[in-house]
């Protein structure tokens, strides 16, 4: 995290270009191709994750500061929680008798 501040902000620029590109790719893939629904969903999900990583590292400098490793750990932990909450809720609420819900 040394002060490379006078240099041109390459990582910001690369991050920006990447995020635009990923967004457009996701739009193209999901709306203008005819892969199966599952394939599309997984690919755009992966692209979203990738964009998140771009933001975290290129813009938010997550590894910077004394707490760099702890920050990474914290975010990974939160992502695990997010996955538990999202997939757990979906699984619990849409399997079993709930699938009799119309």
């Amino acid at each position, binding site marked *: 995290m040394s*002060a490379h*501040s006078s240099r041109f902000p390459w990582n910001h620029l690369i991050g*920006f270009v990447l995020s635009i590109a990923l967004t457009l790719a996701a739009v193209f893939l999901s*709306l203008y191709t005819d892969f199966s629904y599952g394939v599309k969903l997984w690919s755009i*999900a992966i692209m*979203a994750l990738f964009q998140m990583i771009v933001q975290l590292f290129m813009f*938010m400098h997550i590894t910077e500061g004394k707490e760099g490793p702890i920050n990474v750990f914290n975010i990974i932990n939160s992502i695990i929680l997010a996955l538990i*909450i*999202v997939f757990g*809720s979906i699984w619990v609420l849409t399997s079993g008798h709930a699938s009799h819900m119309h």
Partner: protein
Amino acid sequence: MTQANTPLEYRSQQHQMNIFGFWVFLGAEIVLFSTLFASYFVLEHNTAGGPAGQDIFILKDVLIETFLLLTSSFTAGLAIHSMRSMQKRNLIIWTIVTLLLGAGFLYMEINEFIHYVHEGASIQTSGFTAAFFTLLGTHGAHVTFGIFWISLLLVQIARRGITEKTASKFFIASLYWHFLDVVWIFIFTFVYLKGMM
């Protein structure tokens, strides 16, 4: 590492703690938004005879919103870059650009909501619309709060210049702003694209 090449905002213990604390807060925000997402996925198909996502979403508008927000995240990054090279003027300019882009996003989003209401999809229409508007609304409320907050920080930086304290405040605000961009990426992917697929 020496004092000199540590960015200003990390120099004192208190400011390190502020930044770290904000990261912990962002962890909580991730949980908050994932709960909103989980609820949205569960309620997505409960349209109760009202419109569903694909009936109302407009790709063009959503794309514009996305680009506005992505760009604002970029300019927020540039603002921090300027701050670290002690260029107060650039910092202010990039921050104002960021805020304007944010305001543009909000304008588009509000219009989008008005449009949906005209289409018969208000927050009270169905389980789906409730979850949809709350998810989007929470994000939008965060953007709104961010705009006000960062405006207040601008006043402080104009008055006090780039100091350890103002720098750490700005850095934290930039984390917040980038984070909102990340949330939007997921909204864009899992609400709009998935809904239109």
